[in-house]
């Protein structure tokens, strides 16, 4: 049985999509701009109304409160949004307790390992939590948004061009962090990318979208 199964999913501009993604599998999605890749991810995260069924480990998402679904099926938008002044304030209360728990040395993220080491792997020191959002570059925001998403420990990652704003070094860092997250948690990934080399590096399977089909 597949982990994430969609049946007859219709987004605003395309479908029906029926496919499944297995545990620990990384599926790349590519296709020309405007063919509905982002809309597909949004529909999977239940952020746009869509017809059809989506199940996670056999559980229908209609049976589950939407916020819970989104925590388990985590969407990383192409452009990250920040709303507080301080970077560290953007981690939800449940997350913040983990972050602050790390400081007192008690709690570790069961799946993600040590928060500090994950931040390190993404190229940040611990002090980044005290940084002000306005001094972040687009690439730093993108890496921190990935970190913010992983703190939720989602079972499925929906990544919309997660490395588009990164330089070569940081692309590899981000790919490694995602790969090791997959390995330790057996999470599934849908990865929208325009880069054939990246798709060859990270994906087990490749879906191509044409005009929403």
């Amino acid at each position: 049985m597949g982990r994430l199964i969609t049946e007859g999913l219709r987004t605003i501009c395309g479908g029906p999509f029926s496919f499944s993604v297995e545990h620990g599998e990384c599926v790349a999605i590519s296709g020309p701009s405007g063919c509905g890749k982002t809309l597909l991810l949004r529909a999977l995260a239940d952020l746009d109304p869509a017809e059809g069924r989506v199940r996670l480990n056999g559980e229908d998402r209609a049976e589950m409160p939407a916020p819970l679904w989104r925590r388990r099926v985590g969407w990383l938008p192409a452009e990250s949004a920040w709303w507080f002044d301080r970077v560290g304030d953007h981690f939800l209360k449940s997350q913040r307790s983990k972050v602050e728990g790390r400081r007192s040395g008690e709690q570790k993220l069961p799946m993600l390992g040590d928060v500090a080491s994950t931040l390190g792997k993404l190229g940040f020191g611990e002090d980044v939590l005290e940084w002000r959002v306005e001094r972040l570059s687009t690439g730093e925001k993108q890496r921190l948004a990935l970190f913010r998403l992983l703190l939720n420990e989602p079972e499925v990652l929906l990544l919309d061009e997660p490395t588009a704003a990164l330089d070569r070094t940081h692309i590899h860092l981000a790919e490694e962090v995602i790969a090791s997250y997959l390995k330790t948690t057996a999470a599934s990934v849908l990865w929208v990318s325009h880069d054939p080399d990246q798709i060859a590096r990270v994906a087990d399977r490749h879906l191509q979208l044409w005009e929403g089909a």
Partner: protein
Amino acid sequence: MNSIIELSPFDLSLAALLVVALAWVSRKLQLKIGGRLLLSAVRTVIQLSLIGFVLKALFESTEAGWVALMALVMILAAGREVRARQKHRLRGPWSFGIGLSAMFISSFAVTVLALAVMIHAEPWYAPRYAIPLLGMLLGNTMNGVSLAVNQLTQNVRSQRAVIETRLALGQTKSEAIDDIRRESIRTGLIPIINAMAAAGLVSLPGMMTGQILAGNLPADAAKYQILIMFLIAGGTGFGMLVAVWMTSHRLFDDRDRLRLERLTISD
């Protein structure tokens, strides 16, 4: 009681010249608002002259049914006005309905409370108190309510990415929109807070001025003005809470999705 100096039509025409002059200047400056300015000036003349006759008849009859009808017309007009002041309004009957409920709470309920509990008019719906009081509350709370709802919908539109990111991280609709909601309510409360702070020092509010012109003792007029200010503050606040709460809920669906297409694009 010394009676008020009567204004002749000539005096009013002199005042009207000011508006005409302003319309002429705005035409020269291509502000494209001269037409609307003149139109609303004409509306003021017609509406206020008519209401003069209506009130005269109403005060003589003191029939509860007529007072209720008058109040109903005023509230409906206010609900429509709140809706008209939105740049982006909810589609369908929602925007009018929400404006109407907010005005009902902010003005109708507060007026009834004031008449019955504080003023002790006899009967409590005596039109000489009820109608001016209701009108004043409607006129003033309308500003705060429409300001707050306008702020809410504008911010939701401009901060769509933020709201959706928060939703995507597993926040509920209330958590995702809470900051915006609080900000809108603060914005809506600012005019009445400013009005209360400036009352008497910078501005003499209209009702008090009217009473003083009519020959009442300034100290008595002040008491009424204080009452009115408090009623406006309370009415604005509670009406706004309801309007902002209802609007923000209507912006999401039962799966906590942000549904911006429920707002009109713009006028």
